[in-house]
């Protein structure tokens, strides 16, 4: 019997399993005993902290700060609107693409219930449940006979365009509040999602440039990629913070003889610019791996059919290359999600910044361990679930099996 990948044996089998895996020889038995003691001590320490000495009020009193920072409560509907649209689109896409049962998504949501119960109260809980309903609604819509049958391909194309349109839509909606008030998990997610999606086309271009037969273009792309990858993200953020407003500011910028005015250089946008530069270089290396994985014969066959360079890239090479690197792209998303915590050095209040702010509040001085462990849990849940999802995708795509 198997539950969630673990063997759940009956009693006799359990005894045999234990003998084979835990008490196989004197050395192994000693190891088991030692580990039991070690794990016991660790569990006791953690349990003692979580249930006895920790004061979780530092978290419960600051729910809003952790999730949206200084974003005004009256304007929170903007965030909810974005969440509902994305949840609905997510449900629709799940129905249109995935061969996996939606139970997996529901399972993931259930795993997060403890967090919601802890965090949500009153209308927030209702609105959160509502977003699950939006997901379900999108899924049901996608499973209607028309969309899952005849118009499936049209629906997929429309869904892709909706996803692309959802990004500027979200930014415009959220931007009703100045970016300096954005914070908490909201800011972390905005920096990650916008960072990676804006960087993606640049990454693809850089990868193509690196594979180009034009020496000048190749040199430029290799130089950009290697320099960005050779320095810490923190220097790129500093560069964006200090040098970007000097290079392109509101009043002086003249691009190709046209004065460009009003380039917004608030800190969030500067940080985002730095993250885009950083992510583009790393994405370029990932895409390059994908390009190398496409057999040469594909390009040659396309050429023999008389396709031009752009058609070969757009219809033959890139679809295969990008498909092969989806797991690596998810991996890059996870690492960027963690790396956005570095905007703390630019005095932004992302998730980590929020935790630092809480432990500076007079009521909760010295409660650093609680706040840090709490946000560590949030980071962990997101990162761990995404890496599991990426393994699932890898399996579904059969990458490396063909």
């Amino acid at each position, binding site marked *: 019997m198997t539950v969630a990948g673990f063997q759940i044996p009956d009693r006799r089998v359990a005894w045999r399993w234990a003998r084979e895996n835990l008490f196989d020889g004197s050395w192994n038995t000693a190891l088991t005993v030692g580990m039991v003691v070690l794990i016991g001590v660790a569990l006791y320490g953690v349990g003692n902290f979580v249930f006895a000495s920790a004061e979780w009020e530092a978290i419960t009193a600051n729910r809003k700060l952790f999730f949206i920072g200084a974003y005004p409560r009256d304007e929170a509907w903007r965030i909810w609107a974005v969440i509902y649209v994305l949840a609905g689109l997510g449900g629709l896409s799940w129905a249109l693409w995935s061969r996996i049962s939606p139970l997996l998504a529901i399972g993931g949501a259930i795993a997060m219930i403890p967090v919601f119960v802890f965090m949500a109260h009153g209308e927030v809980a209702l609105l959160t449940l509502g977003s699950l309903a939006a997901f379900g609604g999108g899924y049901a819509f996608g499973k209607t006979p028309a969309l899952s049958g005849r118009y499936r391909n049209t629906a997929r194309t429309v869904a892709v365009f909706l996803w692309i349109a959802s990004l500027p839509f979200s930014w415009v909606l959220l931007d009703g509040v100045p970016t300096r008030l954005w914070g908490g998990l909201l800011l972390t997610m905005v920096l990650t999602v916008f960072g990676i999606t804006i960087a993606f086309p640049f990454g693809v271009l850089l990868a193509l440039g690196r594979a180009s037969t034009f020496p000048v273009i190749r040199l430029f792309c290799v130089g950009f990629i290697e320099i960005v990858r*050779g320095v810490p993200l*923190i*220097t790129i953020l500093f560069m964006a913070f200090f040098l970007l407003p000097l290079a392109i500011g509101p009043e002086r910028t003249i*691009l190709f003889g046209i004065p460009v005015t009003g380039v917004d250089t608030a800190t969030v946008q500067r940080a985002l610019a730095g993250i885009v530069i950083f992510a583009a270089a790393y994405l370029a290396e990932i895409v390059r791996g994908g390009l190398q994985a496409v057999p040469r014969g594909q390009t040659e066959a396309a050429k023999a059919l008389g396709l031009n360079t752009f058609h070969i890239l757009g219809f033959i090479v890139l679809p295969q290359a990008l498909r092969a690197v989806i797991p690596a792209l998810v991996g890059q998303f996870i690492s960027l999600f*963690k790396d956005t*915590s*570095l905007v703390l050095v630019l005095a932004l209040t992302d998730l980590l910044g929020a935790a630092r702010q809480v432990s500076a509040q007079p009521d909760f001085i010295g409660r650093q361990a609680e706040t840090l462990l709490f946000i560590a849990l949030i980071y962990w849940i997101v990162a*761990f679930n995404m890496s599991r999802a990426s393994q699932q995708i890898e399996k579904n795509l059969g990458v490396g099996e063909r």
Partner: protein
Amino acid sequence: MAAAQGSSASELRRILTLWRNVRVQRFVGQTVFAAIVIYVGYLLISNMSGRLDQIGLSLFPFVDTTGSFPFISVSGDFLNQRAGFDIVETSFGYDYGPNDSYRDAYFTGFLNTIRVSGMGIVFATIIGVFIGVSRQSKNWLVSHAALAYVETFRNVPLLLQLIFWYVAIYLKLPRISNPLDLDIAIVTNKAIALPFVSPESGFGIWMIVLLAGAAAGAAAYVVRSRRQDATGLPSHPGWWALGAFGAIGLIGFLATGLPLETDTPSIANRQVIGGLQMTPEFGALLTGLTLYTAAFIAENVRGSIQAIPKGQTEAAAALGLGSFQRMRYVILPQTLRILIPPTTNQYLNLTKNSSLAFVLAFKDVFGTGSVIITQTGQAVPIIALLMITYLSLSLFISLVMNTINSRLKWENA
């Protein structure tokens, strides 16, 4: 008239043929690309320089275009000015004080970066290999404890871990007024100190003797391993090398009149004095970097062990090799070849991540650079200098690791 028309038509044809020539296309395309890059770069730089002029700074303070040939500006070299800030922790005994120049301060920070990265790389490798091998353990508890370690540490941002180690662990250690004295160590939240040795007179001579001992050890290793290769008799080159080095070192130690003295730490004037000291900032940085990177190295180790076909172990066992010999002569050499490239990446990451020391107020090269930026306003040259510094460090590590990798390939070829 007709002739003129004919010539202009052939002219047109000539231009069209020229335009369809791939080489011409490539040349024009690249020239246009280069022109755009140069123009945009020029715009950005002239923008920057114009704005810096407004606040009385120069984009290239080291360059004096009005001067004579090397065009180096002496007055603009702000790195020679007095730094005025102190760096509490220095590395490798480098002497620095607030009266030294910015250049010295930057160099002090650079040495600190090298120290923390070097130590981090050593410890992360040891722990990473240990955890990675544990992941393959037949003992269910051990392999799953290792899995839990990996999943915990690599899914939480490093910066968060660093801050956690610093504020929730190292700063929560006993205060200096109430230190934890463990006889072998003094533990306070200002410093953790272990007994150490300090050089006495004759130390320099002994160091030279030690170098000679190392050379003798290396020679013994070569001679003995050649004998082993030639005769097939077990010749224990490692033990011979160690023995030669130890014997010469011990003789030198006695002959130079015991040039080391034990240095036990103590507390005086609310300060920890003597011994081998570690500040909480350095401790938190080293702990965080090591444990985070070790999780990634452990995954590399696991992957590379799994990549070795089972038949290798079985064949080695069939030849009568013991478990240690199987690991040493069959599995490990093959594992290393797969392991080194991804591990090089982790070493590079660790070195770059050491710049997060900035948040802990540990003055590594980045932290020092940022202080210089705030004091002088010279963001452009300092950020450029920092990038060059990190690029050279990355290049150095890659070179070392590539050399090791190619040596391995050569030996096993």
